[in-house]
């Protein structure tokens, strides 16, 4: 501190010069400067202050214009009382004060140096200050930004590395350690420990891509597998950059790594699902049409639909259903949409459909309405039931045919019953009728087994002479070629053989211990082949010609003739009964049997 004596020694001019210099300095500094003088009330309490001086920057920092001469409360009417109290304390105590303080009234934050002028008990204070509102705001937002980044990294489970080649320092965040299945407090953040956790199969690729990125402007992006916590294999996506200095020397590599295992799984599931349903759509043997419910126009169709209709995919897309011949007209099309809105699903059976070439198809349509993202779509499954319809008609025809045959057969049974009733006594009626019905049924059995196409003659004989099956080959001899009889011929010849057998067992060659029957048949060759079959009995008791012609005779004679449009002869020679039936082979044999060499 200069003494009073020294001060008086200095020239007034020098002092003034010095003051001017300081004043100039204060006038031009960046900070705001002002000199204030406290004012007090009667009780000696500070109640205001007046600006005695202010520099150029003052207005910029405070927003107060022409402050000099004004009191603080004139400049800022609702100025907080603490300002006055603080400066009064500085003035009273003479102790300087540096502080930061905000003013709501001024909406600013100040960093202030308050210096007492004149020592304790003076009423003047110099203020050097800055408006730090903006700076604080920036700092604040920087802190917030950093916080946000940290949160984002954590939320995205983002791992970060920052490797400086100049210092050799490699910095990882905790997520980076965790992602690699390492502990931050025990493991070393290094390229080697990173690579040690990369899946062996991916290691060469990662190393080579990473070293490729170590050049000016180099970037690194790769998805690969790492061994995570508990050595679990995880997919990660790494994205990094390289910094370099002015001479192109690589100085730093940094970037982020994200765990994409779940995302990849979802993607994989989606891809599989898409593939699976796409295949279903492409390979279905139902037509599938997808419509926009709003425009009623076709968005997509599957290949089967294009096959069904004969239109190309591109020709179908954009059309309405009635334009491709599925619904009659626009009215029906609209009605379908209305109905779908009420019920979500409609099923149309027997909808006629016409293909491009005019081919008529019977289809069954199931339409579903559902939400696809932000639009309503209708999916129509169209099944070609033409074949099914044909099969149904065929079954229905067969049922009618069976009905017809059954009734015809019953009529035949009825005729046989009526005729059987006319011969013999009522006591034997039941047995004789049963025999004849069994004979009729035997032929039916063989026909059914052969799909009603025909009956092999030797099978027919065996069936009709079932009572004597043990004698076939000994007392009943068969001799003839393979011959398949038509259903009508089989019934007529079968019934005749049955009557002949019954008679032979009662009165003829099969009624004693020694007689025999020879059944022989042949088919002549040539343009109009003839069929003939002969029943010849030998070795039986002496034959007595029947006294009257019963129904049995009718069956052997007339019925057999009628069945083959041929001629039947029966001969009651004493040595044995003989029966012979002749007919054009075409009336007896099936077409396949006729064609046989």
């Amino acid at each position, binding site marked *: 501190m200069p003494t009073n004596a020294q001060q008086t020694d200095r020239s007034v001019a020098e002092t003034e010069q010095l003051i001017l210099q300081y004043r100039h300095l204060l006038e031009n500094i960046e900070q705001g400067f002002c000199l204030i003088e406290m004012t007090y009330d009667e009780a000696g309490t500070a109640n205001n202050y007046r600006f005695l001086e202010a520099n150029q920057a003052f207005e910029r920092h405070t927003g107060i214009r022409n402050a000099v001469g004004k009191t603080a409360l004139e400049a800022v009417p609702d100025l907080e009382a603490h300002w006055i109290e603080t400066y009064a304390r500085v003035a009273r105590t003479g102790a300087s004060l540096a502080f930061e303080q905000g003013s709501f009234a001024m909406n600013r934050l100040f960093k202030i140096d308050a210096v007492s002028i004149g020592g304790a008990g003076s009423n003047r204070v110099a203020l050097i200050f800055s408006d730090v509102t903006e700076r604080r705001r920036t700092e604040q937002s920087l802190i917030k930004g950093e916080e946000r980044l940290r949160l984002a990294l954590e939320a995205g489970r983002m791992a970060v590395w920052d490797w400086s080649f100049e210092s050799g320092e490699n910095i990882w965040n905790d997520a980076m350690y965790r992602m690699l299945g390492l502990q931050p407090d025990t493991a070393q953040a290094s390229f080697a420990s990173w690579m040690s956790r990369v899946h062996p199969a991916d290691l060469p690729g990662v190393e080579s891509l990473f070293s490729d990125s170590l050049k000016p402007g180099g970037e690194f992006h790769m998805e690969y597998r790492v061994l995570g916590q508990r050595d679990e294999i995880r997919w990660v996506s790494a994205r990094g950059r390289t910094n370099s200095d002015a001479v192109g020397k690589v100085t730093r590599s940094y970037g982020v790594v994200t765990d994409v295992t779940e995302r990849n799984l979802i993607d994989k599931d989606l891809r599989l699902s898409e593939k699976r349903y796409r295949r279903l759509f492409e390979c279905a043997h139902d037509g599938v049409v997808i419509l926009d419910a709003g425009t009623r126009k076709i968005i997509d169709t599957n290949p089967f639909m294009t096959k069904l209709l004969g239109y190309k995919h591109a020709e179908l897309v954009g059309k309405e259903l009635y334009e491709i011949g599925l619904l009659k007209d626009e009215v029906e099309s609209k009605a379908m949409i209305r109905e779908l809105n009420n019920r979500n699903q409609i099923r149309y059976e027997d909808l006629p459909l016409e293909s491009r070439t005019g081919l008529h198809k019977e289809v069954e349509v199931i339409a579903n309405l559902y939400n696809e993202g932000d639009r309503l779509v209708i999916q129509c499954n169209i099944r070609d039931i033409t074949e099914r319809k044909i099969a149904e008609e065929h079954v229905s025809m067969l049922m009618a045919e069976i009905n017809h045959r059954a*009734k015809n057969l019953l*009529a035949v049974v009825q*005729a046989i019953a009526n005729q059987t009733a006319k011969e013999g006594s009522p006591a034997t009626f039941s047995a004789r009728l049963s025999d004849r019905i069994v004979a009729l049924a035997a032929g039916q059995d063989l026909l059914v087994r052969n799909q009603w196409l025909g009956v092999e003659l030797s099978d027919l004989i065996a069936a009709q002479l079932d009572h004597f099956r043990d004698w076939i080959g000994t007392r009943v001899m068969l001799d003839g070629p393979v011959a398949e009889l038509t259903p009508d011929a089989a019934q007529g010849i079968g019934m005749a053989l049955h009557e002949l057998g019954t008679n032979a067992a009662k009165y003829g060659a099969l009624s004693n211990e020694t007689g025999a029957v020879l059944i022989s048949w042949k088919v002549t060759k040539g343009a109009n082949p003839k069929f003939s079959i002969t029943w010849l009995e030998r070795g039986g008791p002496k034959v007595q010609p029947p006294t009257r012609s019963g129904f049995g005779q009718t069956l052997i004679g007339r019925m057999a003739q009628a069945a083959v449009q041929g001629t039947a002869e029966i001969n009651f020679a004493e040595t044995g009964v003989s029966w012979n039936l002749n007919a054009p082979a075409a009336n007896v044999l099936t077409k396949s049997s006729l064609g046989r060499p």
Partner: protein
Amino acid sequence: MTDKPQQKARILIIEDEAMIAFAIEQTLLADGFEIAGIAARLPAALTLIDGCAFDAAILDTNLAGVSAGPAAAALKSSGRPFIIASGYPPSQQPEVFRGAPCIQKPYPPKRLLELLREILPLARA
């Protein structure tokens, strides 16, 4: 059965099933009708319709797998009445058989005789 104007009526039987034709024949003969002929196939039926003297016919709709429709048409144009005797119910029969009285197999022989008496006077009127 003292007064039967149709006693002498001659009936044509068109039926492919020999047993049934025989039964019909026996039924008709027993009731005093005459048999004009029996046809088991369509060509024979058409020949008989065209060539033999008969007052009425009994017609099966199916002759060995062939529709008897042409025979029905020929009978209609000949102006002589006929009865359809078939295993098929009338509803399943083709249009050509409509109009004639129908009897479904199997039927009581008496019913066939009643039907014949119903159609014969009309034919003679």
